[in-house]
């Protein structure tokens, strides 16, 4: 079958401990092999940085909320419009592009795997429909459980095994990948217009606290032996002084998986705020980074903010309402019965706005102050902190103190008094950037076992070849070359096929959807549980029989089966 040989590639592959070796990579049938004879295609990658395909472990690209962002924002579609050309379909949009827009732009940056950060199981079918039109990447979806009534009831009853059974049923039914908690308990409170402020607040209608939800979910998650850990969006996002809530949460996280982290804490920039109001708002990234450094069982992503227009969207409905009251721009909200909430508002992050400038600095501080790049992932929580097309700029900022200082000069004058950034000398290395943009994601998501994130025999041939000559590039000085080089690959290869060449995509992406199916004992099989079925049909507005997403929605379908301990 099809074979490909990439010659003279300058490879950085942190999972294989390869740090800048010139080597050949052979591909057969979409997998990396030892070597190939008479390859069908040969690519000479001489002088080009070659990395495993990029993985975004927290982005919002598909599903109800993202699409509502498009639906409500014709003004966003005025940018980024392209017509159908060759194999590429028409695209539109900047912060909430069309599915093809997302897919092509990620592909030109060398990204081959995307994790949609928040999927309400009740609307999972929609996410999977959009995945089908995101052809250049493999897709996975984190599944929301923060306000799931059956789950909250099981926690209240102290029955963690039942909780695990409930997670198992929903994950399989929604064809989801990981357990996502967004403002746990807060989205349920938002059902009557309320919120919780931190992990010890009681949750209305259930006699439990967010902390109990988080801890019990982590235990249940591990009972199911899922590839990924619980993926948490902490309580109290975006509020001055919320870093205490984040620290308290981290202190309560048990370390119960020896293969990977027990908690993935997402967009931590938004949770590292000091001060008692917007007037004395300041960075607490140092405190957060110290806590993370002390806790090897926690992995974070940064949730970097970059300046300009974007659209914020999250399952955290009450948070978006607060943001709306601050910005007075348009506001959408979408509560999902028995499960979760969501909200959307457009924002503009401005350099001359002190709060925005501090937010920008916090993201960078986290990336620079967390010692271990394997536990600090680069992400903007696309499009919340910024559209993902800003990633190359973020990489350049982390690799160059000079670039950071230059940018810092253009910010609100008081920023320096509220942040630690100017004093941080660290400049990330090529290897560290490679870790923070693919290898760490592969490990945190448990995808290494599925052949992702590395480039040795047996791996999926997902490869990004950048027009960057590492030997002749000093990232501390040549940050423009970093930005340009990471913006457009020379080749993006997906499962052994060139899918994007210098920014032009072909439609042979052959995308697949990864989802988990935990096998539980009959006692915890909710599809046979009378109380579950009865409650379901009584309180949901659709029948349980019509709820699960069929495999016909998945295209190429990678079912990750696990044996649960219940």
């Amino acid at each position, binding site marked *: 079958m099809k074979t490909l040989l990439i010659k003279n590639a300058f490879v950085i592959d942190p999972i294989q401990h390869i740090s800048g070796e010139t080597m050949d990579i052979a591909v057969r049938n979409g997998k990396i092999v030892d070597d190939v004879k008479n390859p069908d295609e040969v690519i000479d990658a001489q002088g080009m940085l070659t990395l495993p395909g990029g993985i975004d472990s927290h982005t919002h690209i598909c599903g109800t909320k993202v699409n509502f962002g498009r639906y*409500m*924002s*014709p*003004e*966003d579609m*005025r940018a980024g419009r392209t017509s159908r050309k060759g194999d590429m379909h028409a695209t539109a949009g900047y912060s909430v592009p069309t599915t093809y827009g997302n897919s092509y732009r990620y592909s030109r940056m060398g990204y081959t795997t995307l994790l949609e950060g928040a999927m309400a199981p009740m609307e999972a079918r929609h996410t999977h429909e959009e995945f089908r039109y995101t052809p250049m990447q493999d897709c996975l979806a984190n599944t929301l459980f923060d306000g799931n009534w059956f789950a909250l009831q099981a926690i209240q009853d102290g029955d963690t095994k039942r909780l695990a059974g409930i997670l198992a049923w929903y994950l399989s039914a929604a064809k989801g990948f990981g357990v996502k908690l967004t403002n746990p308990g807060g989205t349920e409170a938002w059902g009557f217009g309320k919120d919780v402020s931190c992990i010890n607040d009681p949750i209305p209608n259930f006699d439990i606290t967010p902390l109990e939800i988080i801890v019990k979910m982590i235990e249940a998650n591990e009972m199911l032996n899922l590839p990924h850990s619980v993926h948490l969006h902490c309580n109290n996002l975006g509020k001055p002084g919320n870093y205490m809530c984040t620290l308290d949460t981290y202190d309560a996280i048990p370390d119960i998986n020896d293969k990977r982290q027990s908690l993935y804490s997402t967009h931590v920039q938004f949770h590292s705020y000091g001060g008692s109001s917007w007037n004395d708002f300041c960075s607490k990234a140092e405190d957060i980074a110290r806590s993370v450094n002390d806790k090897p069982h926690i992995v974070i992503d940064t949730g970097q903010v970059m300046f300009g227009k974007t659209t914020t969207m999250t399952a955290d409905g009450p948070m978006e309402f607060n943001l709306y009251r601050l910005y007075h*721009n348009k506001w959408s909200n979408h509560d999902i019965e028995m499960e979760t909430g969501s909200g959307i508002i457009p924002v503009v992050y401005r350099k001359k706005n002190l709060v925005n400038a501090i937010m920008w600095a916090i993201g960078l501080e986290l990336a620079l102050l967390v010692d271990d790049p394997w536990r600090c992932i680069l992400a903007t929580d696309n499009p919340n902190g910024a559209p993902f097309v800003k990633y190359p700029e973020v990489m350049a900022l982390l690799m160059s103190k000079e670039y950071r200082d230059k940018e810092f000069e253009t910010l609100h004058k008081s920023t320096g008094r509220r942040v630690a950034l100017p004093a941080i000398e660290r400049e990330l290395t090529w290897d560290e950037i490679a870790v923070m943009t693919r290898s760490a994601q592969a490990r945190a998501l448990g995808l290494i076992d599925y052949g992702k994130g590395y480039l040795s025999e047996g791996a999926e041939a997902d490869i990004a070849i950048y027009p960057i000559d590492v030997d002749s590039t000093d990232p501390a000085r040549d940050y423009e070359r970093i930005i340009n080089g990471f913006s457009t690959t020379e080749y993006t290869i997906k499962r052994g096929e060139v899918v994007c060449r210098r920014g032009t995509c072909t439609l042979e992406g052959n995308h697949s959807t990864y989802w988990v199916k935990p096998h539980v004992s009959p006692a915890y099989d909710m599809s046979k549980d009378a109380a579950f079925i009865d409650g379901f049909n009584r309180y949901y507005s659709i029948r349980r029989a019509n709820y699960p997403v069929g495999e016909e929605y998945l295209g190429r379908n990678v079912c990750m089966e696990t044996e649960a301990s219940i």
Partner: protein
Amino acid sequence: MMKVILEVKERHKPNLPIEAECITPKNFLDPEREFHVWKGNKELDITDIFHVRKDGTAKSAEQVEITIRGDSSHIKRVGEYMDGGKILIEGDIGMHCGNFMSAGLIEINGNADSWLGREMHGGKILCHGDAMDYAGSGYRGEKQGMRGGLIEIMGDAGDFAGETMAGGEIIIHGNAGDMPGVDIKDGRLTIMGDCSRPCGNMSGGECRIFGTAYDMLPTFRNEGLTAIDSVQITRFSGDYMSRGLGTIYVANCKYMD
């Protein structure tokens, strides 16, 4: 001075719109420039649609005067992004004339179709006939419409004139339709004739109605009589369903009670 005369040729499908945003004075400064227009999904040379005559030379847009002759009622986007010079339209003009215009003059002897001077920033549009809906308005989903310049309509305007207006001035000598100045934030809208439901959700700016405002909204507060150019007129503040920082002067008004 350069004079450009564009005469619309007779067309097989006369109602099919032509999009011709290339027609701005500045574009004619470049003698090498190719002019393309769109007829539906077909990209054509400008000469397929117009007889083109160019006399004289010019060094800046200000020295260019374009005259459009013939049935131009289905030619859209004329003068889009215009930043100087003059366009004279002898007959009617299609939608989106003078979109995003920042300087210069567009004079229309006939009627203008909808979205005349949408999101205009500066310059002047003088329409001797009527203008359809959304004169000086914004675009879908955007917060701000017209931000500067002047649109003067000698005839009537359709509905939603000055919608989301955020600066500049619109003067309508005839009547305006329903909801002129709805969501207006700044700028001045003057209606010499009648209209209905002016300035809903007004949060700033000024509107003057010298005729009758029908179905006047109840959320504007009557602040008493005053005079503009010796015309006795009632001043209202509002809209108090929102922040209420705008002012309407109305000669007569009728409520829907």
